[in-house]
């Protein structure tokens, strides 16, 4: 464990405070001839309202862990509890929202209809839906694009629309898999601002997967560092910048540089291992 890890921060929260509990989770993929061990014995908890980043090089099993929590993949071992209830593979847990790494907006729906999709499924009346969509569209800075199809939007706009499609049903737990991975640096930091403001207001419990240390530091309360394949937890770090944070200014503080230095070394080792693996 890292020197910066505040041990009482982990111990202090009562069981009722734990929204997500991951216990001894592992996953192996069976391919034609070989078995790929993607995740090995991963355990961690996420507190109510906590913003946790899962950081690691690509191929370290971050998406696999997130997909198991989201019930999309069946674990090979271990268990996941959300609010004390076991996650059943193939059965979506209510209250859990997911933002995908890849753009999964429905190309046959307009931006507005994409955002309102979750409400439509829940049978919310059209008039009410329209009002909520208008709010979300405004919040995402997509005014004037409600009736456009996703293909007409830039990458950043598409990702904002995807974020709103998830947020409109007001999930209390947000799983995000490198949602801004495909964006240029500038757009990415804009998106950090958008996300921080939403999170400060709604206080969701967030699990945010990324391979970008700067992104993890900007957003998270805690960083869980994954090792190269097979994915294990290598280290955890508490990120103690004051809230509310400014996505640009936080990067200019000495504390940011200090934490960056500290974690960078540890992360770098895994990138090297990941490359040779």
């Amino acid at each position, binding site marked *: 464990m890292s020197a910066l890890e505040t041990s009482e921060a982990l111990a202090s929260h009562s069981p009722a405070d734990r929204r997500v509990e991951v216990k001894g989770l592992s996953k192996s993929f069976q391919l034609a001839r070989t078995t790929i061990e993607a995740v090995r014995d991963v355990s961690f908890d996420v507190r109510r309202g906590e913003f946790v980043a899962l950081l690691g090089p690509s191929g370290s099993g971050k998406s696999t862990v997130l997909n198991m929590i*989201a019930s*999309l993949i069946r674990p090979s071992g271990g268990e996941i509890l959300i609010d004390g209830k076991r996650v059943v593979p193939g059965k*979506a847990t*209510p209250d*859990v*929202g*997911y933002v*995908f790494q*890849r753009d*999964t907006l*429905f*190309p*046959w*729906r307009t931006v507005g209809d994409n955002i309102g*999709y*979750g409400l*439509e*499924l*829940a049978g919310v009346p059209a008039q009410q839906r329209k009002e909520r969509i208008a709010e979300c569209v405004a919040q995402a800075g997509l005014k004037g694009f409600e009736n*456009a*199809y996703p*293909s*007409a939007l830039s990458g950043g706009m598409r990702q904002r629309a995807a974020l709103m*499609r*998830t947020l409109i*049903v007001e999930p209390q737990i947000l799983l995000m898999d490198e949602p801004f991975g495909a964006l240029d640096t500038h757009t990415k930091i804009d998106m950090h601002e958008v996300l921080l403001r939403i999170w400060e207001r709604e206080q969701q419990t967030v699990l945010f997967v990324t391979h970008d240390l700067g992104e993890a530091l900007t957003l998270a309360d805690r960083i869980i560092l994954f090792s190269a394949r097979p994915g294990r937890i290598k280290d955890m770090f508490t990120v103690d910048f004051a809230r509310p944070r400014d996505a640009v200014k936080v990067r200019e503080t000495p504390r940011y540089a200090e934490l960056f230095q500290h974690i960078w070394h540890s992360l770098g080792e895994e990138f090297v291992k990941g490359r040779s693996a």
Partner: protein
Amino acid sequence: MKTYSTLNTIGWQVLICAIVLSVWQWGHDLHTTLPWLVPDLLDPYFISKPSMIWSNFLIQSCLTSKLGVVNGWFNGDFAKCLARNENNLWAATAITLKNTFFGFVTGVVSGFIAGLILGRSDRLSAIFQPFITAVNSIPRIALAPIIVLAFGIGDMSKIVTSWIVVVFLVFFNTFEGARSIDEGFTNAARLLGASEWQITRTVVIPSTMAWVFASLTPAISFALIGVIVGEFIGAERGIGRLIIESEARGEASGMMVAVVVLMLVGVVLSAIIWRLQAYLLRWQRQRSAE
């Protein structure tokens, strides 16, 4: 790419039509006068010629009498002519269109539903795989005589022949479409709380639509072919029947009239499909414009 004005394009199209029609109309005469210059390819005995086709069209559609006299609308000549020939051009076209329509619609609907169900179920598609391959290897049109035998010379046999050629085409396209749905879309829907039925309705069907439409233009031609072949084999009315009758009389212009009508029918039906596709798949248009 250089862009040409629509007018320019239409100009060329008109010119091509004019050349083809002129050669067809006068080519054989030229051959008779200048045999060393113009080859003998266009014997009107076999392929008729535009002027003869036109006058035959007027007769078959009861617009003029056999002597070329205009059938009056108000003196009842037109109605009498129609009554005399129950397979007049209008009636024949109507009956062929009607059967094509029913064959097409039943074929598309059943092919689409079967394709969706089997495409979404690994179990069912594994069970039915060999049967589908086997049946698909039969040239369906070879079944037409059996169908006419079984269903008689009425409309039903034409609809069934048409259905059987359409259903497989649509089935295979829908099946492929349903198999190749992006899992990201179904996962996204499921995590937003969609039930299996909601996933089918809001994800599977829309993303399969492009595949289905790709089969509809050939399907409408196939439906028409199915009906015509059925009519060749045994029918009392319809455009196929008209062709057979003209052939028996050695009347090339009669056959050509039927062929031209079929061509027009095919063009109109395809245009309808195109319009429908442009509307339902409008989200794809923007993508290509990007």
